[in-house]
């Protein structure tokens, strides 16, 4: 990515990004722009460069911030009415780390309210349009961030991924999107959705850029007790849970190095010749519910990997078909708890019609949440309520164990798994928004990854004949994030990278 230098000023980079953002207004990418602050920061970086002072690894790089990251710049609304007036007094750890390296936030991006949705249609601030076709959805919940990168406005954008909210919009708009291992990046200062699956990640134009961003933002944070020690920058440890590479079982084949674009992609520590890998393909995902374009893309990619010397194995993972049901029990349960804090008392919107305390809660919450927020909160209360707890919540948590075991077994047979991100490319705006279950079905291939806490990367792989973006996702075992990004850089066609 282009950082500011003596010849290319931070101010010029930021101005160009803001100009592009304004030219793309019809896509409804941003909830708010951060023009004044961004230009001021850019001037400071240019002064440092002129004075020969050291600047950060992201000096002057404009980026877009998903609207659920708390920072002192602008209002953090989570694209909701209930947080519309909220001006955060604190800044998320991840944002502090990016800014310490000189990255400059040019605007906050639109999302499904509280990240509840798969299309960015559930935003209080209107629908974000797909980068390739304005009649189609951007995907979600991080739709604004995906389109901001796809339209070339910013070099990268932040996202959160609780069930696919980075990987699916990345796929719908033709960019890279990475959800790291659960606990890699601090969640401190990010609006909570479902604490056991929420992950911070990024949209970018290459695996190499993602590598840099994860290396900057990963690590333990005393303010988030669920952050892992910094395995990403320390190369993992003996007990880090990464399975040994499966490739040595291949015999003679592994000796032949694979031609790659890794060096050109500039990924730190990547080597020019990569070892042959074993790639798992999930048998159960190859069915009629998956669009023919996506199945063809997967078939083509498999052939390409085989031609490069990698080995393909078929995986039988029958519990995965229950992952969506598990997800829509566990996640609403956590949502119903996490979103109870939004009550109109301490911050955010308070209903003017409330005449007593009880009405402050119920009217503020009723006005302040969108229908999809209400559905999820109510489902959460349902699955946790006495009488239904054992049949739904407890059963789902047991099924979650089966899903995790299936991945663990799979990664004994392969290094990485290659699957579609979603069953279809970007759908039409309005097509699914009134049918929650049909919207949820779009998440069927992305949610199992969050239930297991493993890393997942969307790589853009082409377009349909109508020009809609197609992506595939690469999955690895927990804490294999660096290897996963390296492998993606190795197999990426160099021209796709530019």
């Amino acid at each position, binding site marked *: 990515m282009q950082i500011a230098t003596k010849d290319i000023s931070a101010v010029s980079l930021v101005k160009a990004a803001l100009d592009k953002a304004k030219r793309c207004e019809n896509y409804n990418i941003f909830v708010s722009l951060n023009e004044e602050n961004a230009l001021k920061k850019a001037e400071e970086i240019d002064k440092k460069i002129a004075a020969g002072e050291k600047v950060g690894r992201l000096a002057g790089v404009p980026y877009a911030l998903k609207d659920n990251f708390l920072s002192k710049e602008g209002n953090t609304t989570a694209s909701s009415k209930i947080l519309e*007036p*909220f*001006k955060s*007094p604190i*800044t998320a750890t991840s944002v502090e780390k990016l800014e310490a390296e000189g990255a400059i936030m040019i605007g906050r991006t639109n999302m499904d309210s509280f990240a509840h949705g798969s299309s960015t249609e559930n935003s209080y601030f209107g629908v974000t349009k797909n980068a390739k076709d304005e009649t189609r959805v951007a995907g979600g919940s991080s739709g604004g961030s995906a389109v901001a990168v796809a339209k070339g406005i910013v070099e990268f954008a932040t996202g959160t991924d609780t069930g696919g909210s980075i990987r699916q919009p990345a796929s719908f708009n033709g960019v890279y999107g990475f959800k790291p291992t*659960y*606990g890699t990046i601090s969640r401190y200062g990010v609006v909570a959705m479902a604490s*056991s*699956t929420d992950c911070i990640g990024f949209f970018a134009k290459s695996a190499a850029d993602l590598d840099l961003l994860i290396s900057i933002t990963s690590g333990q944070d*005393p303010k988030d*007790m*669920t952050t*892992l020690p910094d395995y990403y920058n320390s190369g993992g440890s003996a007990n880090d849970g990464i399975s040994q590479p499966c490739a040595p079982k291949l015999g003679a084949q592994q000796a032949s190095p694979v031609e790659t674009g890794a060096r050109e992609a500039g990924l730190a520590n990547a080597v020019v010749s990569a070892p042959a890998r074993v790639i798992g393909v999930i048998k159960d995902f190859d069915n009629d519910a998956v669009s023919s374009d996506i199945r063809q893309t997967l078939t083509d990619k498999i052939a390409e990997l085989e031609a490069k010397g990698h080995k393909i194995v078929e995986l039988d993972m029958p*519990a995965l078909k*229950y992952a*969506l*049901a598990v997800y*829509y*029990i566990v996640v609403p349960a956590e949502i119903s708890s996490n979103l109870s804090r939004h*009550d*109109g*008392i*301490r*911050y*955010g*919107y*308070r209903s003017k019609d*409330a*005449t*007593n*305390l009880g*009405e402050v*809660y*119920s*009217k503020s*919450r*009723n006005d302040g*949440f969108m*229908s999809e927020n*209400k*559905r999820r*909160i*109510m*489902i959460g*209360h*349902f699955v946790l*309520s006495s009488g239904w707890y054992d049949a739904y919540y*407890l*059963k*789902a*948590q*047991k*099924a*979650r*164990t089966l899903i*995790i075991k299936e991945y663990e077994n799979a990664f004994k047979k392969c290094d990485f798994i290659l699957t579609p991100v979603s069953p279809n490319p970007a759908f039409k705006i309005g097509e699914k928004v009134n049918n929650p279950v049909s919207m*949820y079905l779009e998440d069927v291939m992305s949610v199992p990854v969050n239930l*297991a*806490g493993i890393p997942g990367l969307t790589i853009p792989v082409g377009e349909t004949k109508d020009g809609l973006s197609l992506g595939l996702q690469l999955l690895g075992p*927990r804490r294999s994030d660096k290897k996963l990004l390296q492998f993606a850089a190795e197999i990426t066609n160099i021209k796709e990278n530019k």
Partner: protein
Amino acid sequence: MKITREDINHLAELSNFSLSDEEATSLGKDLENIIKYISQLDELDVKDVEPTYQVFEMENVWREDKILPQDADREQLLALAPESQEHQIKVPKVL
């Protein structure tokens, strides 16, 4: 499973929502469809399986019992409240 108006009213109360009649009807229909979908877990045998509540690999992350500097002070936090008076958050009457 049928979701009755009574069920919806109960869930709305647990959720602290003052739903309109129209909203209650439409959410009731949605919830019924969602519950029908998630009920497919009925066919799964999990008798001897332990539940997983979190996928974080560590337990009991300790820190010293020491007050650390806070990111926001009392006045900043009070300023976020829709109404405040004399260093307190103000709400309408409770009863």
